[in-house]
């Protein structure tokens, strides 16, 4: 459980940095958005991976789409930008996770 909490906190901060790099304002608001979005997607994706369907890439794709939708409404941006932002944010956390796993 400890490692899941660490992964959750890391994801919130990494995705916040990516989103902040895009919006370049309201850092606390964006951190809060990253917190609530990842508090939905990460636990549900982890649960699905552990107990229901362990295709990591398929789950990542679903997470990118769902987070993209959340970001579209929370940040008031268009679909294209929201999906791109979600893709970059999730690729960043995925890469950090892979590197972390090999350390």
């Amino acid at each position, binding site marked *: *459980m400890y490692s*899941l909490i660490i992964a959750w906190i890391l994801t919130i901060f990494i995705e916040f940095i990516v989103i902040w790099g895009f919006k370049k304002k309201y850092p606390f608001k964006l951190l809060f958005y990253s917190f609530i979005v990842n*508090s939905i997607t990460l636990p549900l994706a982890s649960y699905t*991976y*552990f107990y229901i369907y362990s295709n990591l*890439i*398929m789950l990542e794709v679903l997470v990118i789409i769902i987070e993209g939708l959340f970001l579209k409404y929370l940040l008031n941006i268009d679909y294209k930008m929201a999906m791109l932002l979600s893709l970059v944010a999730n690729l960043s956390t995925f890469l950090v996770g*892979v590197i972390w*796993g090999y350390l």
Partner: protein
Amino acid sequence: MKPSKSVKILILLLILLSTMGISSADVINPGEKNVPFSYQISNIQDYPDYVFILHGTPNPSIEVLNSSEFSFYKLSTCSIYAVPRNVYNEVQIDQMDETQMSEFLKNDSRVARSSLKLEGTYGNVNEANPLETALIILNIKSIQGNNLDIQKEKIIYGYNNGLKVEKPFQSQNQTPEPTSPGPSWDYYIYFIVLPIIALGIIVFIIIRRKTS
């Protein structure tokens, strides 16, 4: 506003990517942890005239066992040998090279050997699994000539809340399965309460924006 063509293409590309498989033999996949086996001989002190040696492939080449727990590299397969103490002192096994040692342990008529093969790991389990350790208790039944009869007696599974659960071996070839003590309170908070609250907050934000 409907998703544009490029968003649809992006989603299609992502779905195509998802059909790619990822697999590797010795790697712990994301979301998994390894549970190693450790071993302990319960009655080694009843055989003071013997030195018990652990020898495996690819390692350890030699490890003298005592009543303490021992473990080894997760991909190794090991065997236990009983060498009479006087023979052990005479042959100076620690000065042998790998081939000589292996030859001595496998072929010398004075060495008692067992058919029992020990594995290094229970396997990989998912991160949410509370299982942490798996200790197999071995029991020496007899040493007759060059036949060492050593058997797996029980396995003690250890969980992250400190709980230990013992399971006796019904068959030497089949490791009893662990019984999960059930999820803890933090499990419910992380997997159920947290997503519900977060979703509630997002819905609240979106509704408030639309009404204002």
